[in-house]
């Protein structure tokens, strides 16, 4: 068709402008700033090139190191939990029963709720004086009540719980889409052969939804690495930095303390971590898809 009359650039230019101004330029700028000392509260210092100094500082900053561990721990606990729960819910939603549409809509509710609202909700459930959590655990014995959000290990666990509740349904949807591509004849053939439910799951369902499972894992990992809203509302990174994940630490450095250079260094670490993890999954996923195509 006549490209002279409809040059391609006219269609792509608007999207490119946004992508360049608000994604590509900022990431390049963050990278550049991570080699500078720039502190907004000390403007007379100006912007000074310091080479790898920020990265070295990061290596000897105990809060940064514990943030890194907290972030990785958060990813390592929540993503498998979400994918497993998502798989369980997807298996239920894949059956045909009356009211399936309703159940699917209900499962979407946690996904649709603003994360900030979910955070306040769970903060109330974990309240030390009249939270539902304490009542379910200790009943009327108020003297035994815990303050989960004020105790280091429990605070992280509480945020993980809220995250699992909020995002398992997203994993369920992706896995459900995978389940629905499995042709019914496979199960019929297995029935004729007298396969048990477990054998069918193990040898038909699981291999065929592996790409969907990996995809759900990928999306949840990337997202869990970005956890911010829950931390901001439920604990502000406390107590004693025990829930101070990387994205929150970077936010505090840049926006609360004005340490643009050092904050950008933290930002680059989060960025590289998510790039690394994505590449790993894409490798796994790519290999899976290729072997699957070869088999079919």
């Amino acid at each position, binding site marked *: 068709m006549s490209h002279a009359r409809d040059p391609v650039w006219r269609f792509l230019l608007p999207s490119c402008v946004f992508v360049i101004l608000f994604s590509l330029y900022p990431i390049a*700028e963050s990278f550049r700033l991570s080699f500078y000392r720039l502190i907004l509260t000390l403007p007379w210092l100006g912007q000074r090139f310091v080479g790898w100094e920020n990265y070295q500082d990061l290596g000897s900053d105990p809060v940064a190191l514990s943030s890194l561990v907290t972030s990785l721990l958060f990813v390592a606990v929540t993503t498998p939990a979400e994918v497993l729960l998502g798989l369980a819910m997807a298996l239920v939603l894949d059956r045909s029963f009356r009211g399936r549409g309703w159940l699917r*809509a209900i*499962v979407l509710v946690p996904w649709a709720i*603003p994360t900030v609202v979910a955070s*306040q909700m769970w903060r109330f459930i974990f309240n030390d*004086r009249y939270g539902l959590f304490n009542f379910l655990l200790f009943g009327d014995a108020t003297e035994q009540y815990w303050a989960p959000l004020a105790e280091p290990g429990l605070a992280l666990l509480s945020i993980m719980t809220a995250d699992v509740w909020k995002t398992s349904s997203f994993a369920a949807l992706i896995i459900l889409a995978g389940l629905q591509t499995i042709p019914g004849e496979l199960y019929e053939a297995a029935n004729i052969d007298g396969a048990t439910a477990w054998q069918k799951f193990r040898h038909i369902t699981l291999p065929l939804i592996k790409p969907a499972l990996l995809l759900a894992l990928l999306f949840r990992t990337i997202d869990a690495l970005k956890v911010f809203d829950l931390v*901001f509302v439920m604990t502000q990174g406390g107590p004693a930095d025990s829930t101070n994940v990387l994205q929150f630490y970077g*936010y505090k450095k840049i926006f609360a303390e004005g340490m643009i250079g050092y904050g950008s260094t933290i930002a680059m670490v989060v960025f590289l971590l*998510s790039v690394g993890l994505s590449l790993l999954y894409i490798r796994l996923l790519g290999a899976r898809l290729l072997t699957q195509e070869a088999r079919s």
Partner: protein
Amino acid sequence: MRRLGFALVIALVAGFSLAPFLWFLLTSWKSPTEISAIPPVLWPSFHWGHYGAAIVKHGLLGYMANSALVAGATTLVTIAIGALAAYALARFHIRWAGYYLILLLALSMFPQIAIAGPVWRLLSALGWLNTYYGIVAAYISMSLPFAIWVLTTFFRELPVDVEEAALIDGCTRGQALRRIVLPLAAPGLFTAAILVFIHAWNEFFFALIILTSPGVQTLPVGIALFPGEYTMPWGEIAAASTIATLPLIALTLIFQRRIVQGLSAGAVKG
């Protein structure tokens, strides 16, 4: 027996998804003494005071109007720009179309903190901090990758014959897009629009750093920074949260089929 077991499983899934929010909803209708009662009061006395306080004292409707404006504008512009790009990627034979799509996918995975500082400084230089322009511009660029992916998938599934006939009759690509493709793709556009709207309505991180003056803040910022000095006003927070969430739950219940379709088009086919 097996049917009973399955019914139990269904109840469990529904309870897991709904119970925490229902508890918050019931809290919004409790009087202050009912909220702090031990053992907890299950059924509230339908006290509407917290809703009144959330709306009158905390100006919730103002936050709501800001959210509606920001999410609405984001959705309209994102879908318009996204449709243009997706049409070119789906129909023009561009050699690097695949690379552009992969770049977009990569961008959508960036952690917000990786771009937050420079975006803030850029908007500051433009004088766009604390403006609707600023937040909408940031949201458009965050939603574009998803919108372009989903719309490209939808456009590729549309039949090309009518369009080609129109092009032969002398339509430009732009006219073909406006008169033929967009009407045919309306369901896809709508699906993408719902998802972009929900994302913009719920977004918190950029709203927090770009909108620091209360007059322009959106609902998530208002709810996260809910003022409470010594005791948290849980009833008011629950009421404000309910008001912020109801439009979304309504959207989800009405359009669940489209949402599921859109999410899996964005995820699985992509």
